[in-house]
Each structure stands twice: as structure tokens, then as C-alpha cells.
């Protein structure tokens, strides 16, 4: 036994008191039964608490939550930060609206100069734009170009699409 061990000899004797501390009589007679009952109850209910499941699946997250349990002040700080974040996000969320307003302001003068053809123009522009991107509209272009622009029977100038029908035979004249 070295000198260091001898120096702690008295302390080690004192620590033997701990070995004489015993739980209430009969305590261990029911201990295992209680454990097994709790396991059975847990299996029957299938009820692990949220924190127990979290501890098993993501211990780091459970430890993170435990920090809040020990330091309630942090919860307040975190809540205040979240509120601030929310307010800031609302404020910054208004910015895109302002940008779209600016775009409308730019397009309004063009509408004023174009008069009634604005709708046509914008539709044409849209068709052009979309045909550039997809080609679907391009496939329908011939169809749209064949559609008569006036009423079916009211075309002036004799459209080649429509011929008058004649039911009389050639020898009847």
C-alpha cells in the first residue's frame, strides 16, 4: 500500500458507513414485481412518453429540451426571439407586394396607349411567350388561324371556305 492510499485510510473507514445504510425492511421483496408491472402496463398501453421516445430516438434533441427545464429563463428568451422573427418576417413579406405594385404601375401607361387592343396584345404576348417556352400553343396555332373572325354566314367578300349549295340538276334550265 503506498503513501497516498495510507493517507486516505481514515476516509475509507468513514465511507464504510455508507455500506450500512439500508432501505426499509422488505423493500426489495416487491421491487422486481413493481418493475415488471410497469413494463406490462407500458406494453399494454403502448405508452412511452414523448420525452422517453425522443430520448431513445434523438437523445441530442431531448437534451436540448432538458436545458429549458433547468433554465426557465431561456424559454422566455427563445419565445421573444421567435416573436421578433415573426414580426420581421411579416415586415419583409410586405416588400414583394410593393415590387408587384411597381410592375403594375409600369404596365398601366402601356394599357392606356393601346386602348381596346390591350387584351389582344397581352394575349398575343402571352401566347408568344408561352409558345417560346413550351411549344404546345404552337401546335394549336393552325386551328386558331382557321377560325372565322366574323359570323358564319355573314362573311363579306366570299370566303373560299364556304360555297353556296345548288340542288338543281344541270338539265333543268
Amino acid at each position, binding site marked *: 500500500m503506498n503513501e*497516498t492510499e*495510507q*493517507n*486516505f*485510510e*481514515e*476516509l*475509507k*473507514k*468513514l*465511507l*464504510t*458507513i*455508507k*455500506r*450500512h*445504510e*439500508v*432501505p*426499509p425492511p422488505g*423493500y*426489495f421483496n416487491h*421491487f*422486481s*414485481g*413493481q*418493475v*415488471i408491472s*410497469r*413494463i*406490462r402496463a*407500458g406494453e399494454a398501453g403502448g405508452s*412511452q412518453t414523448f420525452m*422517453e421516445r425522443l430520448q*431513445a430516438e434523438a437523445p441530442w434533441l431531448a437534451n436540448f429540451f*432538458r436545458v429549458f*427545464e*433547468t433554465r426557465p429563463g431561456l424559454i422566455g428568451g427563445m419565445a421573444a426571439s421567435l416573436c421578433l422573427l415573426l414580426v420581421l418576417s411579416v415586415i419583409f413579406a410586405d416588400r414583394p407586394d410593393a415590387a408587384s405594385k411597381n410592375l403594375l404601375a409600369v404596365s398601366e401607361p402601356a394599357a392606356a396607349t393601346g386602348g381596346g387592343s390591350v387584351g389582344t396584345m397581352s394575349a398575343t404576348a402571352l401566347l408568344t411567350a408561352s409558345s417560346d417556352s413550351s411549344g404546345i400553343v404552337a401546335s394549336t396555332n393552325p386551328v386558331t388561324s382557321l377560325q372565322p373572325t366574323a359570323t358564319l354566314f355573314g362573311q363579306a367578300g366570299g370566303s373560299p371556305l364556304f360555297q353556296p349549295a345548288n340542288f338543281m340538276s344541270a338539265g333543268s334550265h
Partner: protein
Amino acid sequence: MSMPETAATSDAATPAEPLETDLVHKARRGDLDAYDELVKRYQQRIYATIYHMTANHEDANDLAQDSFIKAYQALKSFKGGSSFYTWLYRIAVNKTINFLKQRKNKQHFSLNDLDFQTENNPDLVALISHKTPLREVGLTELQKKLNEALLKLSEPHRMVVVLHDVQGQSHEEIAEIMDCNIGTVRSRLFYARQQLQGYLTEYAKPA
């Protein structure tokens, strides 16, 4: 009978006994009778470790039960790299240290009674009647002072003292349980003893 002695006799099987592995296999398949046997085998040692760490019977009871339940739930993840006994201890130690961190500044005693053999322990009798300057101090008072001093240690230091000096575990076992190297265990033990000696200078003077 003192707590570790009780543990040594009633926890008859040593961790190396093949029966333990059989019980673990059965328990993994959901055999609660086998697990009940494992609980009975280790309940006293697990309870004692937690009790010496918390100095509170009710907390020790709750934590010991929780440790056994958690071990059962996690049994499928037990790879068998260490003995079940060491693995169970590790669960109990981690659970206790986490609990103590949360309970900080809210420590309260609920000390168990000393058994009838205490007054016949020659070391303790000598300590009280001869060495102690306060000769009139009783064993209960000494018990309280000792627990107060232990609670002043940090959790890892207290754990090493409890496992080594109270429960008689080897440095190697403690290193495995606490998931650290033997050098760390030795240095923690030395530091913890020094601290304790400082707190209990009236009762445990260096030789």
C-alpha cells in the same frame, strides 16, 4: 447485513455466469419471467449505487425502476459487447447523472437507516470513540456529515467514489461503466478523496 454484503450474497450469480446470457436471450424475446430474474439479481446493487449518489430513498427507488424499465425497452439494442451487468449499470449511471444535473440546487436528504451491525463495525467504533475530536458525535450525525460532503462533489467524482470505495468495483469496471479510461478513473478518485478529506477534516484526518 450491510448493503453490498447483501448484494454479494443474494445477487448470487456473477455477471460471467452463462445463465445470465440465457436470461438475456429469453428477455429479449419478451419473456418477462426471465427479466424478473435479472431484476432480482441486480436490484440491490443498482439501487445502492443510485441511492449513494442521490442520498434520497424515493429518488433512488424511482430511478432504479426507470433504469430497469429502460434497459428492458432497449434490450434489443444490447449487442453483448459488454456484460449485461455493465450495460445495465451504464444506463443507471447515465440516468442518475442526468437526474442530478436537473435537480441541481434542490437536493434534499431522505437517508436510509443504518443497520444494526453499524455499531459493531470496529473501524467506525474506533473512529467515533478515539480519533474524532467530537467524541460525542453519533453515527447518525456522522452519516449526515458524510452524505453532505459527498453531495458537494461533482457527479462524476461522486460516482467514482461510490463505485470504488463504497461498492468495491475495480478501476477497470468503473472505466467500462463510465465509458472513460482507467487513468481518468484513478485521477477522479484521487481528486474526489482529497476533496472529501477536506470536507471531513474533523473526522478523517490523514494518517
